[in-house]
């Protein structure tokens, strides 16, 4: 389905990442957002609040992030495409309701413009410190999807992908920005609406009497949805439930649900790989990166190549699910991975697990507050070839 032209600001803009992310969301069909202002994410919802009345939608500034993270789920069940936007401590407050979105299979996009933590930390400075929190922060076991843009243009483009994935898989999709990408202004080209592919919600064609809320098929583990108010009597709950959505307090029901929800993502891992590869074939060293750090890494890679080193660059656009098999295969062909991140070593744990000793891994951690010096990454590359 093509995007609704009413929401698409076609043209060439000079726009920061926060604003571009908002435009991406509106173009993708987001018509409800709830949030509580928090630096450096505020501009996303500020723009949404200004734009959405003209497009035909609602923004509510809720009393806090806990309320915001559940308000969007009410709106999703009422038929809207939804997002919430936050940073730092706001994300921590949302954790319980992220689990609710997983267990009730509520399509939703969660924008996190990462800043330094823990706690209030450095509110106006960049970090990539929430990468593991989004995967494990809510209690219980679950799979989510996360994307990481590295420019305002990607904030627009990938936001549409984020919304589309949340409809396809009916799970929370995280949009992992950072302060630099959020506040950096660059050229952003917004295509005409008929060039933007959006995934519509998978509404059922069945009559209310024939519809089962969480019925799935062997081929498609994401159930069809309904819109509250259309005459379907439904029940959804954060309790473990059966196909009708009613609580069933047994280990068997838990296993059935857990298996399907985990499998919903794991069976589709091959479709959920987006790694931008640059000269990884034949490389001795591969630098792995995502988000803003990929741009800093590129500066180091360019210098290393100028010294005659065979260095590839594998940039994660989809960070979760982590593309394990891709890196497992790559590990046997190269000498070492270098993995800079604006954290003390988070996604590198996934790489380590995937590679399981088949290649050397040199993490390049950073406490946050600014980006890496390219020289630090270059030094790690030089160490890797030694």
């Amino acid at each position: 389905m093509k995007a609704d032209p009413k929401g698409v600001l076609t043209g060439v803009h000079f726009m920061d990442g926060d604003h571009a992310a908002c435009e991406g969301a509106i173009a993708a069909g987001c018509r409800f957002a709830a949030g509580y202002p928090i630096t450096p994410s505020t501009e996303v919802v500020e723009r949404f609040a200004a734009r959405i009345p003209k497009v035909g939608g609602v923004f509510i500034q809720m009393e806090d992030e806990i309320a915001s993270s559940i308000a969007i789920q009410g709106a999703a069940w009422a038929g809207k495409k939804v997002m919430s936007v936050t940073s730092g401590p706001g994300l921590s407050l949302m954790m319980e309701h992220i689990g609710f979105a997983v267990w009730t299979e509520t399509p939703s996009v969660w924008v996190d413009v990462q800043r330094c933590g823990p706690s209030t930390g450095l509110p106006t400075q960049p970090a990539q410190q929430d990468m593991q929190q989004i995967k494990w922060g809510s209690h219980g076991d679950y799979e989510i999807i996360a994307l990481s843009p590295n420019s305002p243009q990607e904030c627009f483009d990938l936001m549409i992908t984020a919304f589309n994935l949340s409809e396809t898989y009916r799970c929370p999709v995280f949009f992992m920005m950072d302060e630099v990408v959020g506040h950096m202004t660059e050229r952003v080209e917004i295509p005409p609406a008929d060039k933007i592919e959006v995934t519509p919600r998978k509404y059922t064609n069945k009559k209310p009497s024939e519809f089962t809320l969480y019925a799935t098929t062997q081929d498609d583990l994401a159930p069809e949805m309904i819109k509250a108010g259309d005459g379907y009597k439904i029940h959804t709950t954060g309790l473990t439930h059966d196909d009708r959505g009613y609580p069933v307090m047994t280990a068997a029901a838990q296993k059935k649900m857990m298996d399907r929800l985990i499998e919903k993502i794991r069976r589709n891992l091959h479709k959920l790989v987006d790694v931008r590869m640059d000269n990884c074939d034949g490389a001795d060293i591969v630098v792995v990166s995502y988000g803003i750090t990929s741009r800093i890494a590129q500066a180091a890679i360019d210098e290393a190549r100028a010294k005659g080193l065979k260095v590839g660059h594998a940039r994660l656009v989809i960070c979760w699910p982590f593309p394990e098999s891709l890196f497992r295969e790559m590990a046997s062909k190269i000498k070492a991975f270098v993995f800079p991140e604006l954290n003390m070593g988070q996604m590198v744990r996934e790489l380590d697990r995937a590679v399981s000793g088949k290649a050397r891994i040199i993490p390049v951690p950073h406490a946050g507050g600014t980006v890496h010096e390219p020289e630090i990454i270059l030094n790690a590359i030089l160490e890797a070839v030694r």
Partner: protein
Amino acid sequence: MAKTEIRIGGLGGQGVILCASVIGKAASIYEGKHATLIQAFGPEARGSACSAQVTVSDSVIGYPYVTNLDILAVMSQDAYNLFAPTLKPGGTLLYEEELVKLGDSLPEGVKTYPIPATRLAEEVGRRLVLNIVMTGFFAGVTGLCSFEAFRSATLDSVPKGTEDLNLKALQKGYEHGTKLIAAT
């Protein structure tokens, strides 16, 4: 791979960010180059220090921060004091001559270009357009993009109803800049 690193500095409320934004827009939208703007993000409020960094390049920009400052434009003494020492030797300094007094901290070979931008803005009609006078001056001195690109970027950036005033301001600053360049 020509790359130009620029910093604009002044006081909150002077229009520092807009000035930087017009430069970035002129380059990236109207001249087909790449431009990245990073604004100092912090507790800046009206009347305190404010600055923005713009990198303009013929190729894709990776590292987004300014590290080797080619051009500095300042509209306050504080901004001058803070950023003038970071100019590269032989770099270019543009300054509001009635608000900034040059000290002896300039790196070697820096070319300096003064402009009474506030007074020129008043002559145009409103002191408020100081930043656009400065933008025109930047265009005239540096020739980074065509005047036409700056003109379009300005039109695209200023509030409706103020286009004439701002274009006059841009023109005024531009002429002052080209005159200085012609005289050197």
